[in-house]
């Protein structure tokens, strides 16, 4: 609480000033001064503590300390009723700085941390797609907390990061819209793949260094990854279309012994579309989705969307039945 007195300076009173007149009257002038002084000291200590954390965020070479500093800074209340710092970075800025430091620790700092004078904020810019990517964090102000890595021009949210819950989940829809649809118009596969590899690297570091639960979604190249369709029933019409479209490109969609559809592509890459619920006898609901297998566990659904025009067209035309699910809690 603050009150202007007659000569215009600002005096800060204890927080409960207005509600408890008696307390104020019961304090002597000396008592009041001491109380005020203690509040200032506390506020200064708070500020010093902040600068230590910021030092840590900027300088530390220990990934655990780095995470701790970032966690605390994103929640830090720097201003107090007695002390206000007019120049401050935002929560989003700390998230961005943290990501760059994490990449630095892995000698893999591909993304550039830029400062926007116009918006008075930091943002990420990726070499190669400079014009079409302005990335910041949007803070989730609900109880859940965490932050969304967002491309500001399109509003596409690429992933959700939550330090407290230790999760990083990628968003299949945004990755499809931004990387597959948007960027594929302007940039070649190599350029976009670099950006995708940067996102993958982030996920890997969170997983390896901090044991986060990371959902790579359509970028996951592991052969065992089941990309589940948002719509759980058999995508019959979509499969028929894939059969026809693949045939035109001289690829054959074959049928397996359990009614699964298998698309054999170049270099021994195979896409299998099937109902995963048949593996679980207690399952009552169908669970259709796809897996991408290759000898080196290197190819993800994302790669195929980019490399095969007919697969991309097919996927985008049939999103209503095929869209790969993201964690519905966050997207």
């Amino acid at each position: 609480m603050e009150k202007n007195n007659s000569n215009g300076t600002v005096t800060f009173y204890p927080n409960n000033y207005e509600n408890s007149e008696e307390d104020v009257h019961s304090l002597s002038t000396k008592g009041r001064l001491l109380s005020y002084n203690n509040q200032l000291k506390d506020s200064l200590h708070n500020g010093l503590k902040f600068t230590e954390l910021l030092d840590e965020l900027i300088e530390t070479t220990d990934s655990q300390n780095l995470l701790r500093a970032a966690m605390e800074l994103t929640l830090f209340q720097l201003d107090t009723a007695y002390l206000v710092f007019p120049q401050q970075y935002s929560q989003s800025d700390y998230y961005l700085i943290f990501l760059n430091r994490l990449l630095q620790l892995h000698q893999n700092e591909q993304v550039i941390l830029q400062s926007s004078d116009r918006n008075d904020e930091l943002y990420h810019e990726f070499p190669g797609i400079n014009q079409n990517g302005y990335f910041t964090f949007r803070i989730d102000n609900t109880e859940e907390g965490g932050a969304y890595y967002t491309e500001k021009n399109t509003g596409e949210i690429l992933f959700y990061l939550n330090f407290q819950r230790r999760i990083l989940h990628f968003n299949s829809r945004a990755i499809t819209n931004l990387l597959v649809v948007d960027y594929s118009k302007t940039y070649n596969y190599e350029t976009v793949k670099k950006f995708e590899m940067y996102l993958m690297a982030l996920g890997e570091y969170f997983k390896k260094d901090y044991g986060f639960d990371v959902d790579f979604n359509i970028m996951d190249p592991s052969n065992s990854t089941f990309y589940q369709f948002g719509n759980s029933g058999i995508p019959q019409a979509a499969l028929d279309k894939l059969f026809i479209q693949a045939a035109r490109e001289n690829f054959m969609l074959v049928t397996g012994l359990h009614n699964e559809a298998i698309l054999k592509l170049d270099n021994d890459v195979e896409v299998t579309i099937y109902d995963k619920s048949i593996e679980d006898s207690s399952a009552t609901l169908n669970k259709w989705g796809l897996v991408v297998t290759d000898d080196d566990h290197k190819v993800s659904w994302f790669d195929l969307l980019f490399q095969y025009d007919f697969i991309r067209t097919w996927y985008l035309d049939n999103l209503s039945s095929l869209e790969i699910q993201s964690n519905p809690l966050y997207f």
Partner: protein
Amino acid sequence: MADSNQFNLSDHDYATKELSNSLISKIEYLKVLNDAIDEQDDRLVYQLIDGQRYSKEILKAKHSVADIENESLILDVHDKISAFLSKKLITYLREMYPFFYFEEIGVGRFQFYFGNWWGRRLFGELDVLNVEFKFNAEEYEKLSRAFELEVENKRYNTDEINKISEETDSLQELIDGQDSRDQRKDEIRKELKRQSQEKVSFWEQSKQKEQRQKLMSELSKLTDLDEAANNAYQKIRENEEKVLNLSKEDTLLGYEKQSIITKFGTFENFIDHNNSLYRDYIADLIARKGRVD
């Protein structure tokens, strides 16, 4: 005491002998069959279960020896014989017809699919005892027609798809014409209103009435088109579904044709092979046996 009024009956000894001979013949038949099965001699089994066909097709005998009575002894185990014979037969067929995929649907009963591709068609059943494909008439007819259409450079559903596409195009035009129809309706309504407020001389009244009629009828035509346009979306969706199914069928037939051409060169050659399947298979069994012995 003999009663001389009794009929004279045949000799019992003769009856005994006759029955015994018959049974011995049956036992002999069954024994030969059982031995053939023990020795995995499929060729002999085929000969035993249908001697008439065997002698006609394989031995080229003028007067075939039918052993129908004995053959009918085993009618109730035909499914088991079929199961027994299927092993070697299907191995043979897989080589000769690599595009047929056999599925067991009961003891000694098999159906087969054409191809391993998505949406492949169930193409018929295999008659193991007669070494014969019982093609699904409808599916077979489509394939046969698809081959015929090749000379016209058409696919099975080309005409149908074109027809539907044309319909879809005109439906789309109907939808696209909504704005211009709305505009015209507006004009007509304004004109009608203007006319109704206009004072005309007695002599011009009939002319005006006629004009009014014309406008009214145009307006009603336009609303009919609006109605049709409203239904067009639904119809277009239905057409898309139809075209999808027809294209799928064309793709399937394309794969089937390709498979036959790869293996047999022509559809006629494929038919010839089907017709001589029994002979060819028995000949193969004989040749194999010769090689093994």
